[in-house]
């Protein structure tokens, strides 16, 4: 008993001695508290992206975007930036756990995530309540930035489904002039959301949705599905799904005579070279909605080169660009609000950081010109429709 007491006392003494050696303190007057980064310590940001399981391409791609953005940024105010990658598992429980892990580390300044909207719902609540700020590169569900359900610390650089689905409907109805369309989703909140918005917008414009079908994301035999769709006689088929199912549908559609001459269209879930490679010549002529990545953008070229060098693959999805923008916005905001001490200590106010990110306006990113609104939607509202021509996405509208 005596020995234990002695040990405790010694430890306490040691702790006090070491504690007394700290540098001079900056004043923190932020209502949500501050992160203090000691000299020589890195600034830690976290990511919560899906990096395992069937949807991992989506998250890995975003994580690569985050990592490249950190590389490009270099040091922030003399501090290295370090990423703590977490897995959102593309599920509500994964989002919850990763968020709890993130908020349990007070050194984390900001969060890039989540990948999936389902994970974003619980994660945005936890992260916002803890005073942190998160920017999602690929959540598209309208509910996340709905005024009634928006969490204070949540933003995103991905397009709200409402914008993208409506843009596709607009293009189909007004530019292509089709009146009968079909939509297919895979039961994922992202694809189902987009397909539903497309259906509603297209009907509103005066068109008719002749088929609204679902398919399992890991389906193999999609011929029956497409035969059913074809029998309904659409002029336009919209399937905003991910790459595996997307390329399968594209290839199979070419083999169905009744779908000859019917326009095929997908969304940014397939906007990647990986999809073009997988779908091959079958993708020729199809339409894809999404951010316009093809405009002469030097940063994006550098990003792409760096991506290929670092990870040895073509981009796995499109959201690395959104993740890159999200990370850059976050790091810029940190740079802007951090108070610097004489010895290099940084003090980052959480509310100040949040305000700075929300104040982003006219930021020229690789996904366009980004301006964040009060509900956290930052994406450039301009959605472009591109067409696959000679194995490349070529922006054709607007």
């Amino acid at each position: 008993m005596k020995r234990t007491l002695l040990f405790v006392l010694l430890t306490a003494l040691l702790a006090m001695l070491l504690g007394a050696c700290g540098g001079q303190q900056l004043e923190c007057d932020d209502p949500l508290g501050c992160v203090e980064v000691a000299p020589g310590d890195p600034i830690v940001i976290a990511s919560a992206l899906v990096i395992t399981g069937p949807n991992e391409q989506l998250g890995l791609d975003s994580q690569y975007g985050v990592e490249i953005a950190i590389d490009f940024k270099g040091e922030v105010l003399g501090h290295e930036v370090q990423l703590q990658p977490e897995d959102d598992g593309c599920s509500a429980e994964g989002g919850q756990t990763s968020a709890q892990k993130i908020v349990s580390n007070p050194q984390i300044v900001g969060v890039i995530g989540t990948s999936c909207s389902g994970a974003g719902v619980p994660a945005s609540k936890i992260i916002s309540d803890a005073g942190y700020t998160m920017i999602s590169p690929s959540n598209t569900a309208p509910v996340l930035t709905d005024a009634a359900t928006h969490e204070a610390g949540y933003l995103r650089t991905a397009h709200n489904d409402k914008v993208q689905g409506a843009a596709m409907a607009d293009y189909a109805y007004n530019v292509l002039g089709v009146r009968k369309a079909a939509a297919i989703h895979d039961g994922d909140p992202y694809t189902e959301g987009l397909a539903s918005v497309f259906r509603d917008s297209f009907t509103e414009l005066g068109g008719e949705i002749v088929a609204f079908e679902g398919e399992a994301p890991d389906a193999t035999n999609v011929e029956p599905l497409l035969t059913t769709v074809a029998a309904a006689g659409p002029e336009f088929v919209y399937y905003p799904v991910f790459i595996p199912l997307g390329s399968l549908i594209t290839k199979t559609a070419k083999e169905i005579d009744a779908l000859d001459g019917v326009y095929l269209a997908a969304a940014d879930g397939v906007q990647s070279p990986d999809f073009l490679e997988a779908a091959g010549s079958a993708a020729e002529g199809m339409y894809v909605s999404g951010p316009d990545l093809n405009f002469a953008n030097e940063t994006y070229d550098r990003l792409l080169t760096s991506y290929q060098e670092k990870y040895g693959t073509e981009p796995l999805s499109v959201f690395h660009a959104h993740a890159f923008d999200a990370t850059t916005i976050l790091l810029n905001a940190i740079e802007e609000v951090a108070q610097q001490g004489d010895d290099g200590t940084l003090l980052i106010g959480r509310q100040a950081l949040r305000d700075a990110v929300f104040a982003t306006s006219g930021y020229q990113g690789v996904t366009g010109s980004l301006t964040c609104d009060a509900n956290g939607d930052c994406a450039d509202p301009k959605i472009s429709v591109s067409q696959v021509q000679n194995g490349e996405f070529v922006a054709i509208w607007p």
Partner: protein
Amino acid sequence: MAQRFKDVDWIGLFLWLFRAAIIVLVLWGTVAKIFFGAGNAYSASDWIDFFVSGLSQGSLYALIALGYTLVYGVLFMINFAHGEFFMSGTMTATVFIALPLSASGFLDRNPIIGMLIILVVAMSISVGVALLTERIAYRPLRRAPRLVPLITAIGASFFWQYFFRGLYGSSLIPFPELQALQGKFSFWGVDILKTRAVVIVSSVIMLIGLYFFVMRTKTGKAIRAVAEDKDVAALMGIDVDRTIAITFATGAAMAGAAGILYGLVFRQVHFFMGFVPGIKAFTAAVLGGIGSIPGAALGGLFLGVIEAVGPPLFLEGLGIPGGHQLKDVIAFTMLVLVLIFRPQGIIGERLAEKKA
């Protein structure tokens, strides 16, 4: 005793109601569809498309199901990792053989030789992975309780999935398209996609070949002897370990071949491709009667066809939206239905009584 009978009757009544309900629903949907034209109007060729695509999917299920059935026959274990044998061979052959051959133009100049090389590589890798799994994860557990190998099989399934993901990456890999297999064959005025036809025909050939292998050859006899009784077989001078390994190898070879056919039809492969077909094939094996080769074939074909034809036929007839999404529901409901009528599967022997 009287008490018991009363209850059994009550349960029996419930089961009859259940059966009747499903059958009535299916019939009602079908009648509504065919005679009253509910939902989309399909042409005869549409129905043929449904059927043929289901048949080709079903023959893949059948080939994979063989692996489950063979292994179950000798070891009474569900080899959960079988879908991964299917994936491993295909992925490797695609990455190292098919894509380079296709890029160099060899594949289109010599489609038959090229496909044979791909097939052999895929089958050997699948066999290798299967033997390794058997050696490390199953053989030490011959005498363990029955659920234990099931867990190692699940472990092996995860392990191989993520091992191959690590090797070849997580992106989708396109399987090369064969010029010779583009377009359609025409049989008596019915157009069938060439790839589908090739898959169906080669599966049937392989199934028949396997049947003769198991029934007629010496090795096949050894497999059946071990399936019947390991101890007696060992007394008869059969090397049990070797025979079990051969069984695994045979199943895996079939899976490897199925993988290449899968590549031909769906033209894309990735590390997750084994999981769902694996579960479906297992379902098919049970549906047909696990332990029986013709059962696996029949189960696979039935499952493939019902998944393809079910949604447009009776689900649309019943006015259910998004029917194709529910094909798994149909598949598993049919499984329950069949097993209520015949607990041993369509043509299975009464394993349940004899060996379980």
